[in-house]
């Protein structure tokens, strides 16, 4: 879906590249006041009814990308208001992370059933016959659904022989797995912060580009210019994200050329998480916990915390691969400043947690990193390098794809305890995650290892990706097989103690 939103995707990414460029050039931030004229030149609107509105929305994107809060349209605010607090290189993201750009939102109607031109007012008119509340009648031109009466059961849609009745969704609310999208007094989308788990699906699904998250592009680039000890850790789904010709090692070298001291695969942290979770499962299930949920996806863990508080203790207390990788670097260089680069928006939130904030300072998405590559004029596929990266095992690299986490934990647990039988169930998509947790709560998943991922298909379909999930899936498979370690127990970068 997302890839076909070409114009929206490009606007978002042009803003990323522009902010990165401003940071590299130490540009006067007052330039932001007129940046929307560079991004949307001329006098004629291209995307919406008015170029003034287009520019106002771009300005909001500039603000959010800088890490500033979204503005309210009922008060005068300059594009750069609040910039002084942001113009330092260690600023943390201010909540909320995911924001509705209210004046970009078209206040789409909420879910409803609608009769289209396909209706032939047929003699059988099953739509009226099957309606349990007598809401469908035959009008002058077509069937009519009485919105007051309709209970949205969908029976009329199923019964129509001409496919004349369609179900209509508000795209942001439809993809939200935790029902966090509500409406404000003008019918525009409003995010309920109590419910939102920052998975980012609404950000990429809104056809008007009215939802955006904050970024740390500016702060990372400033850090790279001024500090020696910046490290990047890169999520397992990075393979193939930056153009089909850029090899994994070229991506790593390209990141180093931006000024990072070193780059480590987060798959290494995945190996460490796997070892912890495998041991935890063997030790605690079923005596101390009836089932165990994986811990790597922040949105999944947050969803369980918010919607199933009594079961939250059954989510593994192992740190996520991001945190484990950062801990590994911090052990060697206690002054390291660490940037996580991944497909994920939710990691930006995870990095703010009390127990995480000392390890991970910055979080970038692949899209944001691509903007930085462009700003710095780096052509990844032309970098000459004949090294290879071997930080992680085949199983660790598999974390990027749905099912990969459970597979890694299961196989490792069985290597540690060959007689142990382990049942596994995976959900990838927040709706499925909620369904799975309902079953688990009802006692139907006892003895199970439950893998939850908020994005459909796993991290490879995260909101911050550039390449299609299918393409990345193939590349990840290839990269997995290039690992010299089959499983985390063989990975000799990891402490011996943990591997036994």
């Amino acid at each position: 879906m997302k890839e076909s939103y070409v114009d929206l995707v490009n606007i978002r990414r042009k803003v990323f590249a522009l902010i990165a460029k401003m940071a590299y050039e130490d540009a006067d931030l007052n330039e932001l006041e007129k940046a929307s004229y560079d991004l949307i030149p001329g006098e004629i609107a291209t995307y919406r009814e008015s170029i003034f509105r287009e520019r106002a929305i771009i300005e909001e994107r500039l603000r959010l990308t800088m890490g500033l809060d979204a503005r309210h349209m009922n008060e005068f605010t300059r594009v750069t208001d609040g910039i002084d607090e942001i113009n330092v290189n260690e600023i943390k993201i201010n909540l909320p992370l995911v924001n509705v750009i209210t004046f970009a939102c078209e206040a789409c109607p909420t879910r409803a059933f609608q009769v289209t031109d396909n209706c032939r007012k047929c003699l059988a008119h099953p739509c009226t016959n099957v309606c349990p509340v007598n809401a469908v009648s035959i009008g002058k031109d077509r069937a009519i659904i009485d919105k007051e009466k309709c209970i949205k059961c969908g029976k009329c849609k199923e019964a129509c022989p001409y496919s004349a009745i369609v179900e209509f969704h508000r795209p942001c609310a439809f993809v939200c797995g935790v029902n966090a999208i509500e409406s404000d007094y003008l019918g525009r989308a409003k995010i309920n912060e109590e419910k939102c788990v920052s998975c980012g699906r609404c950000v990429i699904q809104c056809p008007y580009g009215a939802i955006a998250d904050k970024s740390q592009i500016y702060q990372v680039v400033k850090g790279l210019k001024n500090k020696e000890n910046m490290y990047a850790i890169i999520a397992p789904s990075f393979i193939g994200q930056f153009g089909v010709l850029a090899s994994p090692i070229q991506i790593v070298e390209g990141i180093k050329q931006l000024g990072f001291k070193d780059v480590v695969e987060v798959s290494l942290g995945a190996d460490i998480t796997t070892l912890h979770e495998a041991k935890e499962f063997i030790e605690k299930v079923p005596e101390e916990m009836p089932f165990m949920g994986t811990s790597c996806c922040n949105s999944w863990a947050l969803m369980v915390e918010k919607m199933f508080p009594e079961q939250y203790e059954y989510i593994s207390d192992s740190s996520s691969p991001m945190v484990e990788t950062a801990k590994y670097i911090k052990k060697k260089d206690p002054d390291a400043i660490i940037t996580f680069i991944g497909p994920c928006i939710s990691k930006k939130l995870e990095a703010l947690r009390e127990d995480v904030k000392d390890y991970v300072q910055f979080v970038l998405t692949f899209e944001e990193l691509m903007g930085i590559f462009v700003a710095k004029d780096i052509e990844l596929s032309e970098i000459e390098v004949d090294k290879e990266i071997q930080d992680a095992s085949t199983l660790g690299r598999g974390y990027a794809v749905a099912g990969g986490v459970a597979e890694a934990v299961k196989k490792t647990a069985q290597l540690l305890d060959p007689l142990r039988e382990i049942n596994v169930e995976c959900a990838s998509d927040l709706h499925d995650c909620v369904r799975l947790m309902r079953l688990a709560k009802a006692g139907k998943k006892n003895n199970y290892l439950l893998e939850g991922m908020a994005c459909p298909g796993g991290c490879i379909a995260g909101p911050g990706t550039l390449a299609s999930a299918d393409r990345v899936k193939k590349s990840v498979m290839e990269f997995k097989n290039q690992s010299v370690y089959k499983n985390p127990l063989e990975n000799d970068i990891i402490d011996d103690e943990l591997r036994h």
Partner: protein
Amino acid sequence: MKIKVCMGSNCTLLGAMNLLDQIEDLKGILESNDEKYNDEKLEIEPVTCMGYCKKMGTGISPVVMLDGDIIFNATGQIVMEKIMDKKIKD
């Protein structure tokens, strides 16, 4: 028919991989309906930065070359239509 899709940084930022996906999909559609079209083969090649954006400035990515003809600000719509024009039987 030779189609070069630029995979330079600018083009990748602005959707070159999506273009490549679309052209590869189109190739699949053409091959499964081959009796309708002429038998010119689609050769799709992702290439390193062709350098146009470096010379001419931004505002031209993504770039696609179709049988030597350069297409700036390439969209799936434009490129696929041009490919289809060349596949129509005389």
